[in-house]
């Protein structure tokens, strides 16, 4: 049985026109819409999301477009639901020529950036059904461009909140382009306000031109069912440091992909995840070494409580010709409940021999000796457990450069754990 498309082509074009989209962008939308139902589903090992409502819902309902002009005080982007982004650029960023614009404004003003980088390199619009659906239905987002040689000392904060009260599907796009030899720190926070039977399709594309260096830190607190793609494309000698805190409460299909295209490019990927309740967090992290002398390292630590499921797929792929490359990964999962499910699947695909590739994975429970010690000192079981977990996640947390981000993540972890323990204790 063929599925019904989520909208009609007429609605699609009306939406595009209402937002004054360029002809090129409108064409991408239409083509993707025509293709998406025929494209294969994206394959993520051992994660079955066929029944998730990811292609349903209505992304094109009317929303009040209020677009106040803001005073440039700090470097901050704030976007509520599909409202136009509120953007505040610091004087430093403004002076340096940093561009930060709402998605629809940006495509009109910088069509050449979109033509070059929007769903062409990091995630192609026809890669699979999720990507095509995104290209067809995108209804909000931002563009960030850091010009050549610009090194920002202050972090750029991005705050995206899904508004579930409108009943509207959230299809959000971030296009980040770091120009040659630029240097920027991004602190991103994603959340949705309520747990609703509504989905989100979130794609972030990061293009790092030659010698660019991006520190990317994100804390995710989504409560809806979401496809969350963060896809990076690195040119010569570019470097990307990922630090992600997956503190979602909804079912999440996370697709974190880094393509080390340019010679000497380098990615460090670090993530912590906590799964609670009965949610499923399926995380597929892939780094592909295309260029020579490239290096990609994955470090993922996860904690699972109650009946939750956490699946870590780590994929290190070295293609032929990527001589003198390095692909390492470590996936560790800590199980706090008998009924939890945790998979750690460290996959290596090696087509070149002049490489160093390795992986390690482990799954285990909380160290009983540590628990016993802490509890014998008068700590309650829950507090002792949280301390042990903090120690377990500490090696990843320590890697987060910004104190602010690190503290924010620590707090989120604490909150998520307390909620998870409450949920568990009340169930018992």
């Amino acid at each position, binding site marked *: 049985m063929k599925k019904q498309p989520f909208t009609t082509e007429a609605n699609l074009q009306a939406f595009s026109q209402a937002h004054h989209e360029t002809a090129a962008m409108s064409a991408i939308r239409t083509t993707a819409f025509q293709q998406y139902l025929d494209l294969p589903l994206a394959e993520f090992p*051992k994660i079955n999301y066929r029944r998730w409502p990811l292609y349903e819902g209505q992304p094109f309902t009317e929303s009040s477009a209020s677009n106040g002009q803001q005073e440039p005080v700090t470097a901050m982007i704030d976007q509520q639901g599909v409202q136009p982004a509120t953007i505040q650029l610091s004087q430093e960023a403004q002076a340096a020529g940093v561009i930060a614009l709402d998605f629809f404004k940006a495509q009109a003003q910088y069509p050449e950036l979109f033509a070059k980088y929007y769903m062409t390199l990091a995630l192609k619009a026809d890669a699979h059904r999720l990507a095509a659906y995104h290209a067809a239905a995108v209804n909000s987002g931002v563009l960030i461009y850091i010009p050549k040689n610009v090194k920002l000392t202050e972090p750029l904060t991005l705050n995206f909140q899904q508004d579930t009260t409108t009943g509207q599907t959230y299809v959000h796009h971030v296009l980040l382009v770091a120009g040659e030899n630029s240097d920027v720190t991004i602190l991103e926070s994603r959340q949705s306000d309520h747990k609703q039977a509504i989905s989100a399709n979130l794609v972030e594309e990061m293009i790092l031109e030659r010698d660019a260096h991006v520190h990317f830190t994100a804390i995710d607190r989504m409560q809806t069912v979401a496809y969350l793609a963060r896809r990076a494309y690195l040119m010569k000698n570019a470097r990307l440091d990922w630090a992600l805190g997956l503190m979602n409460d909804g079912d999440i299909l996370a697709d974190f992909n880094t393509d080390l295209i340019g010679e000497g490019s380098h990615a460090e990927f670090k993530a912590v995840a906590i799964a609670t309740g009965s949610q499923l967090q399926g995380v597929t992290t892939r780094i592909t070494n295309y260029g020579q002398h490239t290096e990609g390292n994955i470090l993922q630590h996860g904690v699972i409580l109650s009946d939750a499921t956490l699946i870590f797929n780590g994929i290190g792929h070295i293609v032929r010709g990527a001589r003198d490359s390095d692909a390492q990964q470590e996936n560790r999962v800590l*199980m706090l409940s008998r009924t939890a499910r945790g998979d750690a*699947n460290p996959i290596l695909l090696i087509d070149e021999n002049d490489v160093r590739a*390795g992986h390690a994975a482990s799954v285990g429970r909380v160290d009983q000796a540590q628990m016993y010690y802490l509890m014998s000192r008068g700590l309650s079981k829950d507090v002792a457990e949280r301390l042990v977990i903090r120690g377990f996640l500490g090696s990843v947390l320590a890697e987060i450069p910004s104190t602010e981000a690190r503290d924010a993540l620590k707090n989120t972890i604490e909150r998520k754990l307390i909620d998870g323990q409450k949920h568990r204790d009340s169930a018992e």
Partner: protein
Amino acid sequence: MSEAKTKNTKNNEELENTVPDLGEDYDYGFSDDVQPIYSTGRGLTEATVREISAEKDEPEWMLNYRLRAYRTYQKMPMPDFGPDLSDLDLDHMLYYQKATDRQYRDWEDVPDTIKNTFDRLGVPEAERKYLAGSSAQYESEVVYHNMREEFEKLGIVFMSTDQALKEYPEIVKKYFGTLVHMNDNKFAALNSAVWSGGTFIYVPKGVKTDIPIQSYFRINAENSGQFERTLIIVDKDASVNYVEGCTAPNYSSDSLHAAVVEVFVEDDAYCRYTTIQNWSKNVYSLETKRAQAMKNATMEWVDGNLGSKTTMKYPSVYLDGEGARGTMLSIAVAGEGVIQDNGARMIHAAPNTSSSIVSKSISKDGGAVNYRGTVRFDRDSDGSFAHVECDTILMDERSTSDTVPFNEILNGNVAMEHEAKVSKISEEQLYYLMSRGIPEAKATEMIIMGFVEPFTKELPMEYAVELNRLIAYEMEGSVG
């Protein structure tokens, strides 16, 4: 470039001087002009299945089982993972060939042409020297089997599975197809429909043997399918050590080896199952091997894969009894045009079970060697533990390796460790050895031998020597 080439050639000469007994090509690639006395001809239909069953004079239930399996086989898709099997021409295979009209117990009675084959493979010699029992399968049927009287007296049953179906029908019926269901995969279904030969071993309660029992499998004709069916039952507190070897002639067209092996290890029993597979490079080896380990039982797979065109083999252990233990120790060597897609599956279904997988792989001359495995902890696997280690050496830039392990954990009270590494030959080690005056080729060989040593040291002495020789041969000329 030319300088490197000269150096390489020189080193090869030196290698030949140090290891003088290396053959020019695959040692077992010869074929014999043996006309089968009975064959179902090429291709497979329901009539072929009926014909095989009738020829074997089987009970009704087995015929029905075969027919159901045949229908299952027709319905099932090819595997949706792993190597490309589109070149495998299943319509042109010979599914059943019988070379002799009976089984022989005395080696002297075996027809000369066939005897000659096994003589050249060293089978009778091995039996005389160190085996408790030995059998030989030629194409579809076991042509020879024998066991020393002292072991027979202990009540150990060792015969072809066909013969067992006649002599111990209840035992066969009780176990056959219960561990590997006909619908497990397409090639298990095919085996279930057209199986012939294979080994049946029953070790009674409390009977222990350390001396190995061996079976040797030989494909001779072109485009042959060999579908042996092995059933091993190790009763409570008993032990057995079973070894199998496989070879085939070189042909330009492909043959198929699709075995099904089921091993039942009862409470406190022990089974070691060693395979040295050295098929010629025109054989598809698509096997389904599975064992069940009950309370405090131990199942050990020792698996050496040197030849074939494409191998897909993932022996598994179902740890169904408390305290059961399963291990897999394997090596795989893939040369030019060879795909070795191997691995292991450990299913922890009872408390306090443990498993260990150690996989060593070498890929050279554009070969592909993959590890594909699963460790699964089910709900009731409290206190269980698993350890997985995969090491791969890629000898040159044309060779590839994928490591695809799945670790599925459904119980919070278990521990699992997994490590893997892919690299080229250690330059540091090579440099060290060469700085001591050892030529590059010999140094490479020494490193490789060190790499596979954890495996070879587990083999019976004679096999270890043979395996080292085969690996040295495989490695010949691989420096450059």
